[in-house]
């Protein structure tokens, strides 16, 4: 591209060909007012406020839609230009209702600011307010379209950034307004309440609904969203010591740019919940009395913890204590936590509750790629020629990832979605493969992936050159594929052979990004993951930018918690615990011995509590009672413990069982860093203070370590960071700057990727139990994260219309003779729950969808607490159920 020189306001400016005059000016610090321009949106030219004057011709034009041309001489603020701008604002104001003082948009209103800048005060035009629908029944967004200036930003953000298509212009001329399909209220449209349009709207036409606080933030600060593994950068509005408003941060190079999702935008009101823990508490142990919690000082509480844990260790040995860390706590906190567990208490039992699904996959990928694929940027994903999505619907689980995938598909990437449930990406997909789990209860994702691979080889569509130059055992693998019976494979995959052939034809010759979700843990076993890695080699996708395997992590710091070794079989830096090369340097640094044996898995941990070999548990920021299957069993197990410490921010079911409660701080109240699913390490700083006596979790851990007489004193977070940088080279970038990246290992020259042998699951003919005729698929909706401990403390999320209704096909609903108000009882071999229902015409017959996180996450009653022996991944997201109408509820006369 050529560069162009032009003059703006007497200043010589050079820019690339194709740059608009507006952007050329902005890059050189010349500000032109605008209402419809946004750097991430296509130029639109609707507001005309960015008018500038061409000195040579005297022409006025909108600078945002005019490309800079050679030798232009532009003036941005001549009296003529200013006059026109003022007139435009006067006209807008004449149509505007006079409600600035009570407008929710407050100081974020750009119309008001520009009017003030231009000196447009009292309006001398005849006011012609254009009254329009006012809508505020949903708990998130207030729409007052009489304040709309038709800049089209909301629509363009909705179409170009989040790709939902919930709104578009309706009608034309004076009557034109952004509208949903059939002009329904937002809650009856496909709007996801991501709030992206609210943040981008320059006026009060769209504003957040703050039932819990009305007013204008006094100050702004940036932070990182603490919910999912995307780690969106936030701009937080604070009033006093309270978080009152959230918008996407206006910073360079953020993962989310101008977008957010409903959780990030609206669910952070949990931070102000009355259920926040504010003081350390110790359960009284007096005889014959009901146990009660008494407030204690930090010294008392921590000393009590130390004396009880030390006693237990002395009496029953170190393996009688377990440490459950948290994907919601920072990198530094997780590092300290496992260090206390391993180095001070010598326990092997260090775990975080996602270890067995996303953790296993993360570690397998690291090992197979020699640590060369730790950083997978979402922005690169938009350049991938093809994308295969497996597992949950990213548009729900990690919405910003969903936006990236949809944008890629809109730009022309081939998209294949593999999902038994209706999926918001399918509108964009070239192919939607829907395994019918109800038809084959022995559904095998491994077979599905192998099936696609086999068809790819059969049509000679694999990347032969890549395989030759960069892999080992390619021939053995393709021969293994050829030896399979394609029909049998399709049967195991619960799809047709045609499906597999179509997928192969779509992937032929394309380097592909495989996006794998955490609840794919339901069926992606070690064998499944190996098959997927093989397919990524077969398509030549490893080692490329934006291609290869993208693993989703569920919680904000899922990646960071693993990388810090909060896992029964991994040490900080992803070293297998049995591997001396990782263990010995840590032993030296910590001046201790580390056991080479892996600790207890989650299931074994519960069993150990049940049979009394486990005596004490220290839980930091986790709620196993809500998260694990079979909550009653888990509760009884934990009740058997001699001692339980829970360090958390919200009072929850698990906290109530504790002997000592330590109130920690939320991410807005402390310093630390999270690693997101891309491998991006992001720092956050305290922007408000913790409630009451609550302390940042790392300070609590530092206090504990120091009171145990541990020689290292951690008085600043920087000391912890320094230790991590020194001992965990992949985290060398963990500093004080806003963001850094995990370090990839450089590959030795001649490195070759390994194919794993083709693994064909033997058909296990376990006929489905006729007593449980339906297949229930349990997974999350975008309104909650994970089991919903935090999101369910958001008033706005709680008052939204969804109450955990199951979704069912019209045919099944007819067969069961359901009518609208019916409550249903779902029974699986493991438990029972009660739910309302919604008919979804996109559901397959025999299959129902059960949303996670509602009603104290009672859906976990339906699945077994188990460990599938071959993969070590819990198989807890698909269940067989029977459905009955609950005649007893409702108390009809």
């Amino acid at each position, binding site marked *: 591209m050529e560069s162009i020189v032009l003059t703006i306001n007497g200043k010589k400016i050079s820019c690339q060909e194709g740059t608009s005059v507006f952007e050329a000016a902005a890059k050189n610090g010349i500000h032109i007012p605008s209402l419809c321009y946004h750097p991430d949106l296509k130029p639109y030219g609707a507001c005309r406020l960015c008018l500038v004057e061409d000195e040579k011709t005297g022409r006025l034009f909108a600078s945002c839609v005019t490309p800079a041309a050679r030798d232009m001489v532009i003036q941005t603020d001549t009296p003529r230009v200013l006059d026109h701008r003022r007139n435009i604002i006067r006209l807008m104001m004449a149509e505007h209702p006079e409600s600035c003082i009570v407008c929710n948009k407050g100081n974020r209103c750009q119309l008001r600011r520009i009017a003030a800048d231009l000196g447009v005060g009292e309006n001398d035009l005849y006011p012609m307010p254009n009254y329009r629908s006012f809508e505020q029944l949903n708990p998130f967004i207030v729409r007052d379209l009489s304040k709309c200036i038709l800049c089209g930003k909301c629509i363009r953000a909705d*179409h170009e950034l989040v790709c*939902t*298509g*919930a*709104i*578009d*212009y*309706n*009608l*034309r001329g004076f009557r034109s307004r952004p*509208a*949903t*399909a*059939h002009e329904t209220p937002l809650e009856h449209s496909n709007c996801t309440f991501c709030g992206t349009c609210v943040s981008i709207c320059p006026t009060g036409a769209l504003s957040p609904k703050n039932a819990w606080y009305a007013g204008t933030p006094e100050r702004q600060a940036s932070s990182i969203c603490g919910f999912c593994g995307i780690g969106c950068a936030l701009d937080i509005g604070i009033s006093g010591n309270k978080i009152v408003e959230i918008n996407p941060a206006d910073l360079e190079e953020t993962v989310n740019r101008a977008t957010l999702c409903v959780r990030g935008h609206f669910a952070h009101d949990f931070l102000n919940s009355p259920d926040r823990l504010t003081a350390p508490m110790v359960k009284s142990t007096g005889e014959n009395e009901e146990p009660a919690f008494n407030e204690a000082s930090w010294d008392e509480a921590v000393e009590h913890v130390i004396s009880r844990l030390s006693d237990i260790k002395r009496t029953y040995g170190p393996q009688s204590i377990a440490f459950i860390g948290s994907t919601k706590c920072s990198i530094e906190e997780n590092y300290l936590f496992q260090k206390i567990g391993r180095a001070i208490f010598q326990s092997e039992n260090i775990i975080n509750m996602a270890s067995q699904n996303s953790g296993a996959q993360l570690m397998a990928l690291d090992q197979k790629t020699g640590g060369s694929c730790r950083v997978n940027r979402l922005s690169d994903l938009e350049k991938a020629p093809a994308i295969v999505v497996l597992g949950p619907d990213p548009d729900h689980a990690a919405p910003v990832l969903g936006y990236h995938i949809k944008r890629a598909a809109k730009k022309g990437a081939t998209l294949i979605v593999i999902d038994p449930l209706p999926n918001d990406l399918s*509108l*964009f997909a070239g192919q939607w493969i829907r395994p019918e789990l109800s038809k084959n209860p022995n559904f095998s994702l491994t077979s599905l992936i192998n099936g696609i691979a086999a068809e790819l080889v059969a049509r000679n569509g694999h990347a032969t050159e890549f395989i030759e130059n960069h892999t080992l055992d390619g021939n053995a693998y393709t021969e293994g594929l050829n030896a399979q019976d394609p029909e049998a494979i399709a049967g195991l995959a619960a799809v047709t052979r045609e499906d597999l052939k179509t997928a192969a034809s779509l992937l032929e010759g394309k380097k592909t990004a495989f996006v794998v979700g955490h609840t794919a843990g339901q069926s992606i076993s070690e064998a499944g993951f190996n098959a997927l890695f093989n397919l990524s080699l077969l398509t030549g996708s490893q080692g490329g930018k934006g291609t290869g395997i993208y693993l989703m992590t569920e919680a904000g710091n899922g990646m960071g918690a693993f990388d810090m070794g909060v896992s029964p079989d991994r040490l900080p830096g992803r070293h297998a615990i049995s591997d001396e090369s990782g263990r010995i340097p840590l032993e030296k640094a910590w001046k201790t011995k580390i056991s080479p044996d892996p600790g207890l898995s989650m299931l074994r941990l519960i069993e150990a509590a049940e049979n009394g070999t486990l005596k004490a548990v220290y839980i930091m920021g986790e709620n196993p009672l809500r998260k694990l299957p079979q909550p009653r069993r888990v509760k009884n197990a934990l009740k058997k413990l001699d001692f339980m410490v829970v360090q958390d921010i919200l009072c929850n079911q698990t906290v109530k069982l504790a002997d000592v409660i330590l109130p920690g701080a939320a991410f807005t109240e402390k310093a630390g860093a999270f690693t997101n699913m891309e491998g991006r390490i992001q720092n956050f700083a305290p922007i408000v203070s913790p409630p009451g006596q609550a302390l940042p979790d790392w300070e609590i851990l530092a206090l504990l370590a120091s009171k145990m007489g541990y020689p290292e004193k951690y008085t600043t977070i920087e000391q912890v960071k320094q230790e991590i940088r020194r001992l965990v080279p992949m985290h060398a970038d963990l500093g004080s700057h806003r963001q850094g990246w995990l370090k990839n290992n450089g590959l030795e020259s001649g490195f070759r990727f390994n194919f794993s042998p083709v693994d064909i699951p033997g058909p296990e003919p376990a006929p489905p139990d006729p007593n449980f005729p339906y297949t229930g698929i349990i997974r999350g909706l975008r309104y909650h994260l994970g089991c919903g401990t935090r999101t369910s403390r958001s008033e706005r999320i709680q008052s939204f219309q969804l109450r955990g209704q199951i979704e069912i096909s019209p045919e099944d609903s007819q067969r069961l003779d359901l009518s609208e108000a019916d409550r249903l009882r779902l029974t699986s071999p493991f438990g029972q729950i009660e739910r309302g229902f919604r008919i979804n015409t996109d559901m397959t017959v025999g299959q129902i969808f059960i949303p996670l996180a509602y009603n104290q996450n009672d859906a976990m009653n339906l699945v077994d607490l188990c460990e599938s022996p071959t993969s070590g991944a819990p198989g807890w997201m698909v269940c067989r159920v029977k459905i009955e109408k609950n005649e007893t509820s409702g108390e009809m006369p």
Partner: protein
Amino acid sequence: MEPKAIDWDQLHVIIDKHRYQKWGLIPLLQEVQEVFGYIPPASIEPIARAMKMFPTCIQGVITFYAGFSLKPKGRYVIRVCRGTACHVKGGRSILRMMKKELELEEGETSPDYQFTLETVACLGACFLAPTMMVNKNYYGKLTPPKVISILNQYRKPKPTESSSPAKEADDGR
């Protein structure tokens, strides 16, 4: 009387005819409008899916053009011209009279789906002002008696009469 139930098979034939056509949306909508007399709102979603577009975009196109309607219209759509030339020649009283005769306001459809009354900005036949259209037929140099007689041609035949109004309309010109 209810408008005709939507013939989904016919709708899908129309959709399939245009779905892979370049710039196929407008011709598709035109055909639906032509065949059904309106664009049934329930057809927006299937059209959107086939065209791989957002339903809101389809709706935006439909509501932008005056030629598309989301509401079922009468068998005869009467468009009275409210352009300048017709106004000067008394177009306003023609409209007033039409409203009274049909007992309809602008944009309304009679309960028996016989008539829809609309106005337009100019029919492009100013030399014949005041003008109106009934479906595709133009009528000019209107006077009150002429309006009555035109309307009578399109009114539903009384049970005793047997001749078709459309035929009469052709004869009447």
